[in-house]
């Protein structure tokens, strides 16, 4: 076991898969010589050469289009989109091509590309460096969508994504690259080295795509969340002294419905939290699924915590970010409803 932050864990995942599989290649803006603006690909070009770690032009549609072609010719490309905010020029290649080539060719062709994209706010990035666009891709049949919330899962999920046969959108919550973040920007940062999930095996292992993790068990309420919000939710529950069960879904598509519904049926209460905007956010899918599967077990209406339905503003970062107070208010609302039923 080694101590790694999320960047080192992702780097280790790439290193391990590139060493094991000659067909794994990395392509993206600044990923080669420089090692990526977030350093995730650091040292890889030196180790594996410039034929396998390719600096690319600033053209996300071209990066994904070329990666699809490489995959059609037997490579396993890992494409980096420097910020998830820049993924939009690639949407046609992702939604119309990457997701559907297997389907439209009746399984004769497939293109298992992994697209990594740092996402989320809390880094003073303003509206073009803070977005969480994961829900857009969960609406596309044919791609898997994952987001790890700690170094251990980041490495295991990335290896699973690269070694799997499906295209994967791999979102990395960059606010927690270096350490967990409880939503309080005034507190000194905690490094991953002090967190149990910062313990990461150096070698090969996978975390299966499509399985949620119960981060903390509890009886009062189920909090369903992912990414940076896992730690914000933990802090909020602690603040209120509520015995919350916290589920990090890790994978939005496919979704581990069984883990979620089993928990909600047991606690009878549910708060859903994500950084992305609320309207048509992934929370809507979660809420609808829970309503369908757990309705007769619910003691209170499901609450959603999310970013406001605005672009991500620069000067109002902490007014925008769904911090512990917004989670706490939602928790209080679901817990208050208890009185009404008793």
């Amino acid at each position, binding site marked *: 076991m080694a101590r790694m932050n999320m960047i080192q864990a992702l780097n280790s995942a790439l290193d391990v898969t590139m060493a094991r599989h000659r067909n794994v290649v990395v392509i993206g803006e600044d990923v080669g010589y420089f090692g990526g603006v977030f350093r995730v690909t650091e040292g890889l070009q030196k180790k594996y050469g410039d034929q396998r770690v390719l600096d*690319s032009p600033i053209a996300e549609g071209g990066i994904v289009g070329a990666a699809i072609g490489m995959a059609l*010719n037997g490579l396993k490309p890992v494409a980096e989109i420097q910020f998830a905010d820049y993924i939009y020029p690639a949407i046609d290649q992702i939604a119309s091509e990457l997701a559907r080539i297997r389907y439209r060719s009746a399984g004769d062709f497939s293109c298992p590309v992994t697209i990594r994209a740092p996402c989320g706010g809390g880094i003073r990035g303003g509206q073009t460096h803070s977005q969480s666009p994961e829900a857009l891709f969960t609406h596309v049949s044919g791609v898997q969508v994952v987001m790890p919330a700690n170094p251990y899962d980041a490495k295991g999920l990335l290896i699973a994504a690269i070694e799997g046969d499906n295209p994967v959108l791999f979102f990395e919550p960059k606010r927690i690259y270096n350490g967990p973040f409880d939503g309080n920007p005034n507190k000194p940062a905690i490094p991953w080295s002090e967190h149990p999930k910062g313990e990461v095996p150096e070698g090969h292992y996978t975390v299966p795509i499509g399985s949620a993790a119960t981060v903390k068990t509890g009886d009062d309420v189920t909090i369903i969340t992912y990414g940076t919000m896992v730690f914000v939710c933990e802090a909020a529950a602690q603040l209120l002294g509520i015995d919350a069960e916290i589920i990090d879904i890790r994978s939005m598509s496919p979704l581990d419905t069984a883990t979620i519904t089993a928990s909600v049926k047991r606690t009878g209460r549910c708060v859903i939290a994500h950084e992305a905007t609320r309207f048509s956010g992934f929370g809507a899918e979660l809420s609808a699924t829970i309503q369908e599967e757990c309705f007769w077990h619910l003691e209170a209406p499901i609450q959603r915590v999310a970013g406001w339905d605005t672009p991500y503003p620069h000067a109002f970062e902490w007014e925008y970010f769904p911090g512990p107070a917004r989670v706490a208010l939602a928790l209080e609302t679901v817990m208050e409803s208890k009185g009404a039923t008793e």
Partner: protein
Amino acid sequence: MPRLHVPVTPTRPGDTPDFSYVALSAAGAIKRPRYDARALDLDFLATGLVRVLDDDHRAKGPWDPKLDAETLRSGLRNMLLTRLYDERLQRTQRAGTIPFYMRSYGEEAVAVAQCMALQPGDMLFPSYRQQGFYMVRGRPLVELMCQLLSNTRDMCKGRQLPVMYHWKEGNIFSISGNLTTQFPQAVGWAMAAAIKEEPNIAASWVGEGSSAEADFHHALLFASVYQAPVILNVVNNQWAISTFQGYAGGEQRSFAARGPGYGIAAVRVDGNDFLAVHAVTSWAAQRARAGAGPTLIELVTYRAAAHSTSDDPTRYRPKNDYEHWPLGDPVERLKQHLIKLKEWSDAQHDALSKDLDGQVAAAWKEACRFGTMTEGPWLDAHLMFEDVYAELPAHLERQAEALQREQALNARLGLTSAKD
């Protein structure tokens, strides 16, 4: 004050056809550089027009590929087969047996000559008007027709509009209705071939209209940056449905002229001249295979038929346009060339036409045995849920079960579709 310029469409219905806007060069007039010449020395290829066959149907000049008569006859046969296949399926669509069809009438030399100039292991990324590839690479017509019928032998398992074929074993990629997406994919495929140090190259085709898409830029840029072993083809058939090529930027300069801006060798070629198309493609293939870089080819041709069976070109261009097209008809020109060489005759041509048409008719009859739209057998609707992912995920399994319940209710209510 500048006034907004609106591209000029030279003629509309009722006008006398006028193709004076097409810049022509005489057969044999354009120099043939070495295959590995520097791209920056080749600008003249992007603005001239490489032609081999002259008006008298003789081969002329340095681009003459000097193909033997057997190869020429094979080219003629493949073009003719493409045309007869198209004609029968057009009639079939009109009779209502298939919902949609797209002919390649007038541009058969593009797919046929180019495919013949490439190696069987080269990967082709077509748009929707290169059915000639399948004739050259020899896919049984029945298999293509089953796709058009979405029947039990449909290679796409009922998931694609007619003509959106693919052939893994034949190295022909699946056609997308989203235009130009295949262009950067072909470049990526070629990049992978170079990374793996394999000898095969990639080639892709788009229309001049869809060269306007951002993916055209992505493809040229990536091809240039990584010097990918790829041939990128723009089939300039003058029309994007009703929109004249000027709206894709062809009014100011040739489409081939975009190559030099990216540092890519580019050739403008008479797309209806089988010999010229073959020669230019062979040159580009040799260049790519030798690691000398990618090539952009503009094939100047004419979409003699409607865009598709859903289109009526008499509403936007003169009816008799094609009769006046200055580059003639590709089938007729190769036929006359072979006759001139005393390697072919009208009688042989008629006999071949009859034979090929018979083969097409027989194939159609056989294809229909595997199901038509009105008479079964039909594909199992469960196929709808397969191949979305490598495995069938739980939520799709549940949806497949829901469909079964829905079908059972439909049956009870008598709300069945034609095929039930």
